């Protein structure tokens, strides 16, 4: 018997309409845990670098985390893995909600989609019964609308539905997969689902998930609940309210948006509005939110209320969490009412709330600067808000200029030419980032931005305070009950961190400390992503209930796998390295590992190189960021090493690897050219 996991993947070949239930190898669980880890293994094994995002050979993998469906609080994430049309690399997006546990109860750990359906279909999974059904009547329907229709049509009110909207159907490079109140948004995975001809996946499961050591597991779960209660009563002093407690940043609950509106950039990530947050605006926005919000809501088996149901007069109800609250508002220099209204439409269309508003603001900037002209925007309304609605529709329908903008700022700029690339200025690895422009380089954030392959800072950062507390006594106090640190040295790193002087950014934390901190932050996210645990109760907030000291016990008692901190650290390193290997094989190199040039005003090129050198070394990667043969062998990834040697990515003589990487770059450029058109 398998514990915590079901031991089966559901494989659907959409070209042939073939459905298979495949028993998985428990040895893979030991090595790669589950969720992201085993997703990465499948992607490495079955999707070679020649396969493009919109190729039938590309896979779209929905992986439920190893502990999803067990009573572990907050463990509900689906990890969606595929090749991104936008970055051409492994897409790394996740959604909370209710879908992953339902898939486990239906008897599957993963759903692996391959091939392409000629007609638009939806998948209906009800325990052992799996059907591919005609979805022609759902074409063009909104993602939430689709879910509602299917639940009614199938008479399955308790089913969970993951669906794409028009953006996914039309293969917009930043299309999301929406699931009620959650979405997997980053990397354009909705476009891959649309390309495969799948409108929605309906899941209903009524079977058991087994626990290896029931009493021990329950004690651990109760311990987590107790700690959550403790943290509710003990918010972290000295940090802004959204960072004081647990959960995702509490954007639906907290009305004070002074920090975001005055420190994040408006428009196409350009303008800082230092005195924006007035009493009048606070009142107006609070009223907007309070009137729109009918309830604070949670994902499966989690007491944190990070989401909300929103009903704006005249619009269908929808659900939201986190920072999409402000991205449209700030992209359009508008107010919260506009932001919540257009987000309703964008959610039905199924668009990433980070990329979409930036693409629209980018287009209008090109118009202002005569790179695009009025002829590119026929019949566009004159008012600001109207122009955003106009662009939203053009993009999801891929009409006119929308067809170009639907590829995201990087590819759109290339196609438009005339210096447009200067305006696609807020990308990392071709992917739009949070609109932040700061003054002094922060070494920790530099490394996270540069090397993080999730490409979304909120899913990379966490655990370690974002800035030092002004007084040493406060820092010492913070460390008193900081049980989550993997090593005592992290406390000293923090205690010695000052706002000004010798021990301040950019040179403190020093290279070694910075590498240690980033490595810890990244490891915790990677563990979460394999277990299916929401970052909001683990890797993101300060002092979370899950950490490196109790996770091995959860895995051992839950899944029945012998586990300790060392073994878990190694497993996380193994599949983290495998994610990198997938991207290296697709041409990613050191040259790609950089934050936007204008992310900080004060840059330190020499220090930045040292940081990268130090981090690569700590990770066991060579100067180009390629995992070395020794590292791969040591992690049991010798098959990756062999592949790298065969492809000339690594040479037997390590010193030649620099030359080999040039070849890797050529591969990427060639692919970029080939895949110019949206229909490619």
């Amino acid at each position, binding site marked *: 018997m398998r514990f915590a996991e079901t031991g089966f993947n559901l494989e659907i070949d959409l070209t042939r309409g073939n459905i298979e239930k495949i028993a998985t190898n428990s040895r893979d669980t030991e090595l790669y845990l589950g969720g992201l880890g085993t997703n990465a293994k499948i992607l490495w094994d079955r999707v070679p670098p020649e396969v493009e995002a919109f190729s039938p050979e590309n896979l779209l993998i929905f992986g439920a985390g190893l502990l999803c*469906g*067990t*009573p572990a*609080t907050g463990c509900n994430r689906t990890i969606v893995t595929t090749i991104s049309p936008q970055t051409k690399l492994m897409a790394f997006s996740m959604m909370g909600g*209710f879908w992953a546990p339902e898939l486990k*109860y239906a008897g599957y750990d993963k759903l692996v989609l391959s091939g392409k359906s000629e007609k638009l279909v939806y998948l209906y999974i009800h325990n052992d019964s799996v059907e591919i059904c005609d979805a022609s009547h759902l074409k063009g329907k909104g993602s*939430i609308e689709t879910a*509602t229709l299917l639940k009614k049509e199938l008479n399955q*009110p*308790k089913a969970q539905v993951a669906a794409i909207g028009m953006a996914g159907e039309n293969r917009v490079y930043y299309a999301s997969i929406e699931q*009620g*109140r959650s979405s997997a948004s980053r990397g354009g995975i909705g476009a891959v689902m649309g390309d495969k001809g799948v409108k929605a996946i309906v899941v209903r*499961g*009524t*079977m*058991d*998930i*087994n*626990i290896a050591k*029931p*009493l021990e*597991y*329950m004690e651990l779960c109760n311990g987590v*609940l107790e700690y*959550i*209660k403790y943290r*509710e009563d003990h918010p972290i002093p000295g940090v802004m309210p959204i960072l004081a407690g647990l959960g995702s940043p509490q954007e639906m609950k907290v009305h004070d948006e002074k920090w975001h509106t005055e420190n994040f950039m408006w428009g196409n990530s350009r303008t800082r509005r230092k005195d924006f947050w007035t009493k009048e605006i606070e009142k107006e926005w609070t009223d907007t939110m309070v009137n729109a919000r*009918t*309830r*604070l*809501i*949670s*994902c*499966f*088996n*989690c*007491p944190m*209320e990070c989401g909300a*149901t929103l*009903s704006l007069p005249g619009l*269908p*109800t*929808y*659900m939201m969490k986190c920072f999409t609250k402000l991205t449209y508002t700030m992209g359009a220099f508008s107010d919260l009412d506009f932001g919540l209204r257009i987000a309703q439409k964008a959610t039905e269309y199924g668009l990433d709330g980070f990329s979409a508003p930036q693409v629209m603001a980018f287009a209008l900037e090109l118009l202002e600067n005569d790179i695009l002209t009025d002829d590119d925007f026929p019949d566009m309304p004159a008012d600001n808000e109207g122009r955003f609605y106009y662009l939203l529709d053009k993009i999801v329908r891929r009409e006119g200029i929308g067809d170009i903008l639907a590829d995201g700022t990087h590819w759109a700029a290339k196609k438009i030419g005339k210096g447009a690339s200067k305006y696609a200025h807020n990308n990392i690895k071709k992917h739009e980032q949070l609109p932040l422009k700061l003054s002094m380089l922060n070494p920790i954030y530099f490394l996270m931005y540069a090397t993080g392959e999730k490409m979304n800072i909120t899913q990379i950062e966490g655990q370690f305070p974002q800035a030092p507390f002004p007084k040493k006594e406060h820092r010492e106090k913070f460390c008193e009950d900081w049980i989550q640190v993997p090593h005592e040295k992290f406390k000293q790193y923090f205690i010695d961190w000052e706002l000004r002087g010798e021990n301040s950014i950019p040179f403190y934390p020093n290279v070694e400390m910075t590498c240690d901190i980033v490595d810890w932050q990244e490891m915790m996210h990677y563990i979460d992503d394999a277990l299916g645990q929401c970052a909001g109760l683990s890797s993101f907030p300060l002092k979370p209930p899950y950490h490196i000291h109790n996770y091995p016990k959860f895995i051992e008692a839950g899944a029945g796998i012998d586990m300790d901190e060392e073994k878990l650290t190694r497993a996380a390193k193994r599949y983290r390295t495998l994610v990198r290997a997938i991207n290296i094989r697709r041409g990613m190199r050191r040259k790609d590992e950089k934050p936007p040039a204008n992310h900080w005003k004060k840059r330190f090129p020499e220090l930045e190189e040292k940081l990268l050198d130090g981090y690569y070394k700590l990770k066991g990667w060579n100067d180009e960021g390629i995992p070395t043969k020794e590292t791969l062998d040591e992690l049991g990834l010798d098959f990756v090493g062999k592949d790298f040697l065969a492809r000339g990515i690594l040479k037997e003589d390590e010193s030649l690897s620099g030359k080999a990487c040039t070849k890797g770059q050529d591969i990427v450029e060639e692919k970029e050219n080939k895949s110019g058109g949206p229909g490619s």
Partner: protein
Amino acid sequence: MDNQVDQTSKIIKTIKIDIDKCNGCRACEVICSAFHAMPKYSSNNPARSRIRVIREPLRDVYVPVLAGEYTVSECAGRDKYTIDGKQYEECAFCRASCPSREEFKEPDSGLPLKCDMCEGEDEPLCVKWCLVDALTIEERQEKVEDLEQSLALEDLEIGLESLADKFGMDKIMDVLVRMNEKE
């Protein structure tokens, strides 16, 4: 005097449900099904839970309902209630394991489920696991006579009764005899 427990009255624990506080997370279903697994906590499956959140997020309907008595036939009335501007089916508040719906039946056997307030625990675990306080425990005094009348049937008895309703007592007896012979 009212607060005194004497021979004729006893403290009764009831679960108080505040639907305005429910966040729809279904932790109650998770822990309930885990507690009632055999052996205890060895598996988990909300479809076996004795509490269900009747949930329609887009209409803001969230009603945690605890499994009550089994009923052989569905009721005639299907009234609708409008509360605070939201419409609820009568069934949304009904605790019965009833032929007209999926709730409160074992997914394998179809046998009815009933809340036992987590016998042996300090408090029902759905209450313990509901950190948002949609479920809280309330104590009240009741006379013992009333109590006796409302004494619940044991699991086995409820199951047998429902089988008897479905197949008839004779058939049940036949099967029992046959099973006995086999052993």
